[in-house]
């Protein structure tokens, strides 16, 4: 791995983050209407506290820095971001956006990382075996099932699972991250409770994802099996298992990781919606609530987090490639 390569990837990472966050800043300001004004109008319409609405709007505008010229806002926006300050929630004024996010992030991270890893490993294994000429018949029979599951978007599968296992048969809780009214602690009971709540959301991500992975992996496996080195490995008298793992699967790992990276985006957005379905206390659920409450600062903050998360994950992936395939640093030159 060359310094050159790392620097290039790092540059790409910065470009992605900066442009996405800039878009995040610019788009709302391009749109007609003033979010604070809108928000105030809404509050006035809903609650009875009719006072000096215009005065309040002015005050809020000042507080959120909306009275300054756009370029100044842009600079202070970046300054705040770099300090980790995402501002206040429009809805629950004294609460900071960053605290909303830090409260939700561990839930999402835990759920997503586990689910994605399980999906990836299961899918890859299934696909690799399916691509092998002597795949067991039983496994081939399962494929259509997973393909149909794959055709269902994550969160729709979540709805079905919710109905099946939390409404019809009440084996799993119908939502949330832990049982209402209990305090979270490091006890076996508490952990089991958390796992129970995470099971259905995770299952929907896994079930919907495995088929796609398996299909993709099968394709890669078949094209690798057409390579000359597989033929020679067989001629060398190697055992099937050795050829399968070290000559077949090893060589699909690069394209597989590439597509893992590419699909992360889908998984992340899909997972956001899964959280919404299960009212799972991660950032997806927070995003849904913020959208409903038109809490723009929280929406923006969560989107910044999503963008940075994805960009950083892809960057890490990029750093892993050369370890998987030694040719990569040469090829990309």
């Amino acid at each position, binding site marked *: 791995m060359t310094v050159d390569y790392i620097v290039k990837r790092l540059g790409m990472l910065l470009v992605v983050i900066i442009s996405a966050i800039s878009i995040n800043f610019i788009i*709302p300001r391009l749109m007609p209407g003033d979010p604070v004004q809108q928000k105030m109008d809404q509050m006035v319409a809903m609650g009875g506290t009719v006072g000096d609405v215009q005065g309040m709007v002015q005050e809020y505008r000042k507080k959120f820095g909306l009275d300054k010229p756009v370029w100044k806002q842009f600079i202070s926006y970046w300054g705040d971001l770099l300090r980790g300050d995402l501002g206040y929630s429009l809805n629950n004024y004294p609460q900071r956006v960053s605290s909303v996010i830090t409260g939700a992030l561990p839930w999402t991270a835990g759920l997503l990382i586990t689910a994605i890893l399980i999906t990836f490993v299961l899918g890859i294994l299934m696909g690799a075996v399916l691509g092998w000429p002597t795949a067991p018949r039983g496994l081939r029979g399962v494929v259509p099932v997973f393909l149909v599951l794959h055709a269902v978007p994550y969160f729709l599968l979540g709805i079905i699972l919710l109905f099946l296992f939390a409404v019809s048969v009440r084996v799993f809780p119908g939502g949330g991250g832990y049982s209402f009214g209990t305090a979270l602690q490091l006890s076996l009971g508490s952990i089991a409770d958390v796992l129970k709540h995470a099971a259905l959301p995770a299952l929907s991500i896994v079930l919907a994802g495995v088929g796609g992975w398996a299909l993709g992996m099968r394709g890669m496996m078949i094209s690798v099996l057409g390579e000359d080195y597989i033929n020679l490995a067989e001629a060398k008298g190697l055992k099937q298992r050795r050829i399968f793992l070290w000559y077949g699967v090893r060589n699909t790992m690069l394209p597989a990781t590439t597509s893992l990276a590419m699909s992360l985006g889908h998984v992340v957005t899909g997972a956001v919606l899964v959280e919404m379905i299960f009212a799972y206390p991660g950032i997806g659920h927070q995003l849904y609530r913020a959208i409903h409450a038109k809490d723009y600062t929280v929406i923006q903050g969560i989107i910044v987090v999503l963008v940075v998360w994805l960009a950083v994950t892809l960057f890490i992936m990029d750093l892993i490639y050369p370890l998987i395939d030694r040719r990569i640093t040469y090829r990309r030159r």
Partner: protein
Amino acid sequence: MATMYRDRAHRALRFARLNMLLVSGLAVIVAVVLVGYVGSAIINQDDARVGAFDPGLRPSRDHLLGTDRQARDVLAVLILSIPNTVKIGLLAGAVGLGIGVVLGLAAGYFGGLVDLVIRTVADVVFTIPGIAIMIIVATNIRTMSVEMMALIVASLAWMYPTRAIRAQTLSLRERLYVEVARLNGESGMELVVKQMLPNLLPYIAAGFVASVSGAILATIGLEALGLGPQGEFTLGMMIYWARFYGAILRGMWWWWSPPIAVIVVIFIGLLLASAGLDRIANPRLQRTK
């Protein structure tokens, strides 16, 4: 003449047999679209009006799929929703694909700086979770319409086709037959249109399918979040309202399951079609039995 016709028919049949996937995928999609459009013409549109019947009725002879909490006939709403969702998917897919083909061809053919700019922009946008941008845009739009929805979704449906077409153009550009065509006196534009484009068709078709399904997926996601066209019938909005009124936890399965079923059927159709197209584009995947 007759033999030529028979020959063609024979070849079409053989192709259909070889590519059952593509044919059955297309058949599924056409069937859904027909149900949507023909059904919309047949049913009584008033059945889908709020308060038309009693709310929350279970499926019965009168209401095959029951009624929802807003007292609408679920079947009527479902049928009226299909054309709108299909419309958003096709519109967004076509716009996305159009942009993708033009950019991909330009990047692949001109190379150099043009390629660098297009590739970087596509890579950057690809790395940004699309739904994030769409949420930002959608939350800032006062009244959402079906067409607006399609445009928003299309703005993020062009990267996949751009990348795929670019990669293919890059490899086609190096093909010897393009060189030969140059020696035959063909100019730059002719090389693209006459030599490269025909060989890109399977990729373009695959790109279209990919961007249509991406667009439908994104649409439904946005709608489920509550960012869809509130006053229109779409499959995603059906799911949104069902959730909004707690249909899932209340066990009103007849309300939320039909739109999911239709969406799944559409996606299966698209999946089959894209697998079929994949076989044409990468014949190596075709396993000889």
